[in-house]
């Protein structure tokens, strides 16, 4: 019984709840089609957990997570295409005469290397970019613009690599028509369901990692960096190192989200990794509440769900809704939906004040405190 009421247990209640929803409820009531859509949203939620860490705790406005998402996605996509083609053969979208592939493509033929690359490639790019910017004290809007420019450049790079004679990335058409995922037939609904469980499992693990980081001393230090980077410096830390850790972890999470996206959705194109999707990844986090643990997850799933539902009905309409949502949340609800409760409480207090109702008596501490401190110091 004691365990049930302990704070350690209550911290795990949301995890239990999420696990029940994802592993029991959703597969029980959703059709295969809807479940596949939810799996896709979960991929974005995995990215969102990382953004919550870098932006919510660390204050880094990561407008270019599409790059890391894309690195993970293309690593997985190339692996699956090479796997489908069979040993020693080139993927079906490349020219039929292709008899040699460059090493950087050939390496994705190996499953273990691909899995390592999904995490390490985004992490390495984030490490270089993070150190190059944070060490130079580039931050705020400048960092956001820089990371967004990187997303644009990355999408372009994939298109360019596809338009050359080798057609390594299949350009704007992207990678699609996958047949198998690590030996499992993707046409089998059981395997599709397994992919959903995989995404759900990864999401819970990512949230758990984020939770541990947030509650650790590092998490406190990261929030201190967001609050006042200079002060952290004068305490003997290099804030660049503190921030780059969160940025690298966020990038690795985005890579994992991207890698899961490919077998679940069945296609990855430069359109999925550029500027617009990078912003879309951020909007869910902003709406859900960037400073909270579960806010980014709920926001990302909610926005992705709204996007596919609304764009099924009014295809042209969604962009405006997305923009409006973003503006409303940033302007009126900077803490996201997670802060709705306290905003309403404050608004009520303000309303009561206006109507002349007695507010709660102010706590008379000041004088006591002064004498208290004075006697002790």
């Amino acid at each position, binding site marked *: 019984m004691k365990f049930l009421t302990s704070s350690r247990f209550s911290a795990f209640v949301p995890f239990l709840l999420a696990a029940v929803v994802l592993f029991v409820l959703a597969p029980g009531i959703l059709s295969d089609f809807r479940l596949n859509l939810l799996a896709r949203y979960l991929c974005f939620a995995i990215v969102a957990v990382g953004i919550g860490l870098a932006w919510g705790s660390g204050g880094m406005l990561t407008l270019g997570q599409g790059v890391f998402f894309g690195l993970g996605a293309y690593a997985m996509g190339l692996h699956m295409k090479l796997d489908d083609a069979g040993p020693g053969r080139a993927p079906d979208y490349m020219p039929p005469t292709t008899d040699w592939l460059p090493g950087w493509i050939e390496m994705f033929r190996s499953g273990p290397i691909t899995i390592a690359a999904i995490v390490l490639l985004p992490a390495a790019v984030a490490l270089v970019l993070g150190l190059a910017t944070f060490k130079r004290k580039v931050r705020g809007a400048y960092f956001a613009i820089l990371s967004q420019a990187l997303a644009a450049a990355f999408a372009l790079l994939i298109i360019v690599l596809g338009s050359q004679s080798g057609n390594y990335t299949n350009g704007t058409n992207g990678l699609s028509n996958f047949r198998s995922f690590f030996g499992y037939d993707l046409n089998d609904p059981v395997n599709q369901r397994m992919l959903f469980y995989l995404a759900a499992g990864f999401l819970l693990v990512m949230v758990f990692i984020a939770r*541990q*980081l947030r*509650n*650790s*001393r*590092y998490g*406190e*230090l990261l*929030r*201190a960096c967001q*609050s*006042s980077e*200079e*002060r*952290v*410096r*004068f*305490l*003997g*830390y*290099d804030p660049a190192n503190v921030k780059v850790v969160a940025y690298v972890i966020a990038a690795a999470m985005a890579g994992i989200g991207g890698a899961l996206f490919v077998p679940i959705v069945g296609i990855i194109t430069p359109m999925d990794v550029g500027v617009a999707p990078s912003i879309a990844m951020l909007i869910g986090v902003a709406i859900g509440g960037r400073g909270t643990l579960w806010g980014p997850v709920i926001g990302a799933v909610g926005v992705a769900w709204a996007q596919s539902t609304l764009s099924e009905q009014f295809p042209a309409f969604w962009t405006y809704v997305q923009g409006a949502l973003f503006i409303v949340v940033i302007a009126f609800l900077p803490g996201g939906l997670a802060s709705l409760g306290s905003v309403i409480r404050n608004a009520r207090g303000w309303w009561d004040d206006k109507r002349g109702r007695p507010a709660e008596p102010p706590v008379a501490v*000041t004088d006591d*405190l*002064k*004498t*208290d*401190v*004075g006697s*002790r*110091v």
Partner: protein
Amino acid sequence: MATDYLEITDLTVSFDGFIAVDTVNLTVLKSDLRFLIGPNGAGKTTIIDAISGLVPSTGSIEFAGNHLQGKKVHKIARLGVGRTFQTSTVFEDLTVLQNLDIAAGAHRTPLTLLRRRSAVPEEVTAALETIGLTGQIDTLAGVLSHGQKQWLEIGMLLVQNAQLLLLDEPVAGMSHDERNATGELLQRISTERTVVIVEHDMDFMRSFAKSVTVLAAGKVLSEGSVAEVQADPRVQAVYLGTAAAAPTGAEI
């Protein structure tokens, strides 16, 4: 022990040709409580900025045998130099405990950082006692009163184990009682450390200074005990000269 002091030689700081600090020499020994005073624009804060690595300078700054110039801010902090700012810069959305714990942790290993704090570190408990914030341990620093924030800043310097404390107007905006409490606290702290205080409040300076350096237009004008400095005609001239502009600062 013998090297545990601050020695500044020919310190010059210029901003785009404007010389804010001009060949200043300054030696502050351990257990001294040195006040830097002078009219606005005398270069008091700039000297602190130069010591803590915030602005580039020429000349030589040495503390406890280490040359500080050219080192990065956080490297200088790790050498035992701590400072506060005119406006308090505590981490407002963290608690008092979290603020102090971060200040105490610059030498922690990555593994320790990735774990949760299991107990309040000893030095944090001691500092809480010293600054009188034991009761506010879980209060967000942002809701503390102005004076408490300043004390929290001093507490952060203590747990940081700074041996050279640079304080920029630590009692600005405090009530009379708070000032006295702060002054006594600083006197006690200074017995084991080197403390340099930039201050405009002359009453506060007279009550608590062990030694004073008067600056004017980037140069050292006078140096010595409070009585010596007060008797110096050059100091009187400078303060009388600015008396019309700043009558409250002139009553030295």
